[in-house]
């Protein structure tokens, strides 16, 4: 389960295979009419800029259209499209419910699917059928301002307690330790899960927990409670405060990028925006630490993927785009705008950029994982959204951490029941 994303993608085998993965898709030059290929994604267009430009060059006779929909409403928008038998040709993500409802094309027999490592295909494989091809991996850790850290002789933490001490030290010298846009459900979900990755998922006996949870054989409240209780110290110590519930993601980004806070949690997709806002910013990213001292964990995995709408208007053209996406050239273009690693056999994964050097040992040990991607039919947005809402309520002082997990279990059961 914890196969390292990097190890899956790097190595000599990949390079050898690279000879066979030259762009195989014919360009669309032979087409006389300009076919429209619509792609819908929850990553902003600038995150796909180089890749989209490459697609437009490769397929001059296709009108490649990219539609960005904010993550908050992405599932709603796509579900509505699909339920009405409409929608774009290529869709970012392969929600288990769309698969169950038969809205996504089974790609298993497509030749380009075999070009990917199984680790990349796993989260979009249901009952042995592959419904999406993975794009570059994603990961999320704690960005930190290197100048602030250097100025106060601070180093990235190796354990959760060290991390908490770091907050105290920063506060003592008058620096706001952490910015957080807790108006979004994501950051608290990921920080708390990050501790669970260190303390729970790293144990071999828990390696199949997520599959069992998806089926309703185990509960979060039993399994995650110790890790979440540990994480809860950050609220008790007022590192995360209720006023953060009134802050947006972009506002937290601004706060961190302009040096008003020393740390902020996000991923590589935020890097360019932060540098644009403050070109002098020196950034590093460290993984979320656990109770025991160690390399820490990043939340992430092969989350983003291209799926094909079963009712795609231009299925052939979309398949050619997916085929071309499965080439080292297209993968390199994807990585250029948002750093991650490719799951394509033979893709020349670039060196870890300097800003992620503090996360190197976490990558080397394969400590990159997102639990919900393996919850089977519960892997859609509903449940992690509910967990986020429960954590918001907890930060506001409404519920205990035990109730947070129990209420999330209750919601999980409600979703399972609605599928029966």
């Amino acid at each position, binding site marked *: 389960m914890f196969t390292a994303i990097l190890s899956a993608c790097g190595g000599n085998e990949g390079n050898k295979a690279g000879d066979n993965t030259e762009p195989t898709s014919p360009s669309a030059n032979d087409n006389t009419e300009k076919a429209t290929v619509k792609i819908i994604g929850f990553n902003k267009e600038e995150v796909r800029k180089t890749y989209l430009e490459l697609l437009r060059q490769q397929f001059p006779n296709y009108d490649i259209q990219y539609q960005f929909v904010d993550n*908050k409403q992405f*599932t*709603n928008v796509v*579900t*509505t499209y699909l*339920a009405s038998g409409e929608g774009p040709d290529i869709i970012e993500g392969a929600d288990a*419910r*769309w698969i*169950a*409802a*038969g809205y996504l094309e089974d790609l298993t027999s497509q030749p380009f699917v075999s070009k990917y490592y199984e680790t990349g295909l796993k989260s979009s494989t249901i009952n042995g059928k592959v419904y999406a091809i993975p794009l570059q991996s994603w990961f999320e850790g704690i960005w930190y301002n290197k100048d602030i850290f250097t100025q106060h002789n601070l180093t990235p933490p190796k354990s959760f307690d060290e991390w908490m001490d770091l907050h105290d030290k920063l506060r003592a010298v008058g620096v706001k330790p952490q*910015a957080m846009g*807790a*108006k979004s*459900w994501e950051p608290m979900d990921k920080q708390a899960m990050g501790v669970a990755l260190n303390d729970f998922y790293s144990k071999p006996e828990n390696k199949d927990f997520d599959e069992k949870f998806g089926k309703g054989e185990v509960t979060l409240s039993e399994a995650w409670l110790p890790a979440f209780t540990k994480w809860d110290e950050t609220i008790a110590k007022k590192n995360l405060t*209720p*006023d*953060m*519930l*009134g*802050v*947006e993601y972009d*506002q*937290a980004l*601004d*706060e961190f990028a302009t040096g*008003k806070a020393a740390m902020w949690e996000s991923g590589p997709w935020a890097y360019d925006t932060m540098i644009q806002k403050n070109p002098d910013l020196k950034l590093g990213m460290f993984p979320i630490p656990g109770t025991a001292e160690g390399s820490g964990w990043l939340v992430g995995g092969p989350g983003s993927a291209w799926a094909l709408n079963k009712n795609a208007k231009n299925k052939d053209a979309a398949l050619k785009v997916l085929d071309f996406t499965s080439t080292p050239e297209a993968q390199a273009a994807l990585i250029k705008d948002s750093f991650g690693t490719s799951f394509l056999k033979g893709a020349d994964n670039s060196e870890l950029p300097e800003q992620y050097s503090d996360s190197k040992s976490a990558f080397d040990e394969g400590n990159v994982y997102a639990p919900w991607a393996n919850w089977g039919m519960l892997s859609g*947005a*509903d449940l992690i959204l509910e967990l986020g*809402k*429960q954590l*918001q*309520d907890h*930060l*506001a002082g*409404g519920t205990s951490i035990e109730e947070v997990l129990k209420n999330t279990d209750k919601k999980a059961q409600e*979703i399972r029941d*609605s*599928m029966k």
Partner: protein
Amino acid sequence: MNTTKWNFRRNVVFQLFVLPALIGYLIFYIYPLIQTAIYSFTNYSMYHPNMKWIGIDNYIRLFKDDTVIIGIKNTVIYALLMTLLQNALAIPLAIALNRPLKSRNGLRLVFFAPAVLSPLVVGFLWSYLMSSSDYGLINQGLRAIGLNNVNWLGNPKLALYSILLTQVWQWTGYAMIIYLANLQGISKDYYEAASIDGAKAWTVFSKITLPLLLPSISFNTVMAMIGGLKVFDVIFSMTGGGPGHSTETIVMTLINKGITESQFGYGSAFAVVFSFMIMIVAFVQLKVLNKWEAKLF
């Protein structure tokens, strides 16, 4: 041709003009309404495209669902306060701006302007003004005068009322314009007579202005109440229903259940209940206001 025949023919021709609108109404309003009512008795969802009749199970489940209860409670509080505040502010504002002030046209424009903005835009704008980050302009102002930050949108006990304030800001000017139009239609003779009789300001207001404003009070309160019950866009843009479930309203819960969670049958049951709720509230409100009008005249 005799007159009766001609009248009948003319009526038929006139009624034919209504036909396109009637067809549209049947297709886009009545048909979906019937379809929704049918779905509400089924388990129709993304996982059950071949729906099964489950009787009133969806309706029973609805009243046991905590999030539905929260949604109904928030909506009722929001709609009631919205109706009261908006109208309580709009009436004195309209009276003030009905006076021969030099700046009255400019002021009317200023107060009415927010009403032409999209609630989504207003929501995004105010969520930045009310932010509890360093960039929140309102909190910057509070700090400048020595007060503490207020967690406008991040405090579950306050967030709904913060949203309400923005909506009162947006729609008071709209209600004011309707009251102004009504005020300008009131004959000056009443006020002259009252002045000759030596009536005090409050007497003039309660005995002349208020009763004659009743038609627009009815219109504004019914519109504000229905708008309040249907609120979605501004809450979506300001808090997304959070923190937690604290600012979720009926329409938001309806969208969560029916679309996000793809429980079409269950969502339909909620939609049916909600439609009845709006009908009952509007009916009762109109009855009460009509009675009040009759009593005052």
